[in-house]
């Protein structure tokens, strides 16, 4: 096979066939489905969850992962936080002419490995090759389908006094990407937290009662994720600044660069809102899993009413301030 992707790889002819056979089918193992124009899958009973996401992260390879792994974890997590069990994924690739085939293979292998870890099958795909400069290396779109069981998430059930729990430290992905870009002279050991949380979250949902909300935190960080939740479900939440777990390296990088960890991207963290009676159990369960070791109680739902809908932060000097959506921070292509 050629060393670099050429426009001919996207023409639908011999080279396309070769690319699909040698790169995609070899890793994804979906030879059976690939013979048909559409993958055929069994109908799940009950409700299904569907989500789609496109990945344009820069750089493509970063400490803790690459665009391929991210394209699986991101979509899997979107399904998992609704309470669905992710079942199948599709993957669309937009590849820049001249992109090294070896890099593509690495990316595709990571996707396959992460899909296996998450227990999902990649059953359909598409490849397009565009002229040099039309995309930056490779962009990937994944669509995921999951089955919703008896227990699912209904944020409208949030109540005053509910506990707000985070599964771990915030801002790791944002700082990992920034240091991988090597533009800031920033050298850190921080790895992206990108991980599929579906097993952890499924366990949690099965073994506890009273879980009202699960949200994966991505672009915009913890603050933006919770502001949206507060507004959408007329809930007010108060977080305690000193309780929010932030790695020392992330805090240091933020101090130097003027970023706020509350607004930095995450790719393997979720917020769980649960009946306060179950909070200890949830934290215990999270902490016994490798993706929840640093789980902590970070705040409470303070009111549910038409007039609510605000996210507040209690500072170390016991004043409170309102948190708003991310605005004005120039950090593009983080996922």
């Amino acid at each position, binding site marked *: 096979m050629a060393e670099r992707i050429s426009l001919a790889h996207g023409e639908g002819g011999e080279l396309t066939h070769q690319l699909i056979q040698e790169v995609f089918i070899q890793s994804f193992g979906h030879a059976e489905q690939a013979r048909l124009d559409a993958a055929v899958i069994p109908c799940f009973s009950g409700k299904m969850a569907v989500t789609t996401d496109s990945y344009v992260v820069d750089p493509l390879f970063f400490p803790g992962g690459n665009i391929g792994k991210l394209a699986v974890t991101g979509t899997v997590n979107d399904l998992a936080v609704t309470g669905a069990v992710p079942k199948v994924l599709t993957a669309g690739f937009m590849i820049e002419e001249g992109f090294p085939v070896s890099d593509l293979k690495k990316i595709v292998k990571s996707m396959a490995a992460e899909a296996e870890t998450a227990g999902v099958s990649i059953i359909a795909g598409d490849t397009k090759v565009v002229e040099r400069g039309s995309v930056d290396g490779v962009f990937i779109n994944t669509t995921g389908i999951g089955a919703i069981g008896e227990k699912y998430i209904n944020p409208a059930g949030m109540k005053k006094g509910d506990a707000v729990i985070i599964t771990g430290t915030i801002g790791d992905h944002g700082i990992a990407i920034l240091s991988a870009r090597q*533009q*800031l*002279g920033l050298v850190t050991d921080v790895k992206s937290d990108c991980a599929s949380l579906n097993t952890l979250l499924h366990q949690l949902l099965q073994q506890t009662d009273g879980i009202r909300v699960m949200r994966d935190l991505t672009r915009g960080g913890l603050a933006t994720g919770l502001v949206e939740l507060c507004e959408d479900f007329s809930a007010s939440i108060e977080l305690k600044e*000193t309780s929010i777990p932030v790695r020392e390296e992330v805090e240091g990088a933020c101090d130097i*660069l*003027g970023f*706020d960890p509350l607004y930095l991207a995450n790719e393997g963290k979720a917020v769980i809102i649960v009946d306060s009676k179950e909070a200890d159990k949830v934290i215990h369960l999270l902490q016994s899993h490798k993706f929840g070791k640093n789980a902590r109680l970070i705040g409470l739902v303070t009111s549910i009413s038409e007039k609510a809908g*605000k996210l*507040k932060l209690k*500072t*170390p*000097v*016991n*004043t*409170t*301030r*309102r948190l*708003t959506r991310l*605005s*004005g921070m*120039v950090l593009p292509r983080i996922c």
Partner: protein
Amino acid sequence: MLETKIFSHPELTRRLADAVAKSAETFIKREGRMPAVMEVCGSHTMAFAKSGIKTRLRDYVRLIAGPGCPVCVTDQKAIDAMIRLSEKNNVILCSFGDMMRVPGSGSSLLQAKTNGSDIRVIYSPSDSIQIAEDHPDKEVIFLGIGFETTIPALVAAVREAEKKGLTNFSIWMTTKLVAPVLRALLQSGEVELDGFLLPGHVSIVTGKQSYRFLNDDYQIPGVITGFEPVQLLSGLLKLLNQLHEGRTGIINDYTYVVNEAGNFTAQHYMETYLTRADEEWRGIGEIRGSGLVLREKYARFDAKKKFNVLPAVPKKTKCRCGDIIRGVITPEECVLFNKACTPSKPVGPCMVSSEGTCAAHYHFMRED
């Protein structure tokens, strides 16, 4: 090694805040009003707001944000000129991210970028040298805004361009100096002040001695302080003590990084490459000798000499950034604040700059 965590230690912060409040109460009993303290630096303004200290002390110390945000004090005509500059053919404009959303009379750099101008956000002026090397067929212009903290980095970029013999690199300088604007504020007498919290970063370059005039000419005290909660509060406490004892003079409470004479190397290169010039300040007007520009010898790196940009007549708005910069009003007293003017729809620079007073109040001091 310095244990930096101690400077944001929650318990220590709380206790110091209590001590400042108590000390301020004594002042209030004696004077019948709160002590009025100006924090000169925009990063101080942000840190006071974000840490919750400004809210905690609102009934004890009147903290007035000073003219220390470089983006905010940039004159409207200069911002319009930068936007026009970006629209020129064959130009790559490099800027700190803070400038991108600042509203000009008709547009912003971000809008110009969307419309096709080649504008790069960079973190260090030296990055623009690399861009100039990579694009020998383009003119690369760096928007050189900043106070004494940033000016040495601008000079370093010019030195690098000089060493590399670059002919396609230049800087659009609108630099500002701290001492002249403090003099202008004190001379105007518009705002009654009891003392200053002086900018830690600027002082690294200029040294403690650069504030001697505050004592000699105006008999007003000042404390040079850092940016962490404990440092801010320690600075305030020392300033209040001076007020109680009726002492003036400058205290250096940031001795880990600030010394008496400042950074000699930085001062030397600033002196070699730059010379004093009159600068326009938003809301204040022209202040004599309040900026630095490239000396004639380095005119080839001076974008203002290299490119002709027609001055525009600034659009009049109800924006009161100028009054806010001088400490005459607070953001909440501006009719536009959090109504017509928000970070995503800014009318003035104070709302978009990461050191802007309105941004500090919008992001960190709203409770509802």
